[in-house]
């Protein structure tokens, strides 16, 4: 049953990705990429990664779509007509895709408890988090406590992004034309 859902969500993602490539109307493209993000969030829920799904739905489907719409107010709504069908490009993309699929063949099976990622620090976190940190949500314990340095770095990256955007697009004292 869950495989059927996986296949349904994945094929809808493929359809929306192909539609993004084909459509010329940029408004429809933005909306479809938002739908793609929402489908990705659904997929994360199916993979039991609720926290990641939450972030994808809020950022990928929500904020990113709004920002793209903001950008659309400055550019034409119709993509410029270009020469379609570059055979070389298609071959490069197909080769890269085939290589990536080939690389997944070496990966441990999904949910395999003996996978390397489950044998390194995960047992330690799962076993000691209730006594050391005491939070029911181990994801939060890992993010905020065990991996506090990483999260501090990420917060600083977001701060830097805001500074960068403000430096590029104006600090709020933009001269009026």
């Amino acid at each position, binding site marked *: 049953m869950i495989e059927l859902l996986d296949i349904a969500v994945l094929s809808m993602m493929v359809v929306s990705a192909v539609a993004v490539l084909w459509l010329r109307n940029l408004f429809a493209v933005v909306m479809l990429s938002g739908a793609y993000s929402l489908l990705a969030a659904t997929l994360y829920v199916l993979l039991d990664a609720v926290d990641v799904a939450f972030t994808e739905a809020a950022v990928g489907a929500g904020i990113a779509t709004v*920002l793209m719409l903001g950008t659309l107010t400055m550019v034409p709504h119709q993509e410029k007509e270009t020469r379609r069908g570059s055979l070389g490009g298609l071959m490069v993309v197909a080769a890269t895709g085939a290589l990536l699929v080939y690389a997944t063949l070496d990966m441990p099976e999904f949910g395999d408890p003996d996978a390397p990622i489950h044998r390194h620090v995960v047992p330690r976190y799962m076993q000691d988090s209730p006594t050391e940190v005491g939070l029911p*949500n181990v994801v939060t314990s890992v993010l905020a406590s065990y991996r506090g340095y990483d999260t501090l770095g990420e*917060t600083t990256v977001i701060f830097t992004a805001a500074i960068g955007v403000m430096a590029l697009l104006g600090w709020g004292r933009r001269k009026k034309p």
Partner: protein
Amino acid sequence: MREKPILRVGTKLLIPFILLFALYVQFHGDFGPGGGFQAGVIFASGFILYALVFGIANARAALPAGLRRQIMALGVLLYAGVGVVGMLAGGNFLDYSVLSDTPTTGQHIGIFLVELGVGMNVFATMATIFFVFASRDPSAKEDG
């Protein structure tokens, strides 16, 4: 937007619940899915919805640029500050166990404050990026 009463009333009804849900995600992140990042984004989306319906100028009056920048910087400072307090209390940087008498209470306090810092920073950043982008719109010529 004077001519769209349904949209305006509907937005006004929705925004309190969006902000409340953001606060729930923020402070319930220790127990369920969620946390500062998601909460910050949802909180910002409440203001973005307000800006989309009532115009950038009104939204900017509700959330001035100076306030946004202060929240943004305070969020990072709060996060790093918790780490420094841990150092002053005799632990390592970002070690929350020393923040209270019992290690788990210290961890609770530390994670709560750190997530609050993340939420403040993400909220202000998302809102700022949106406002700066939106003010590039030729039809809205207010200051970013």
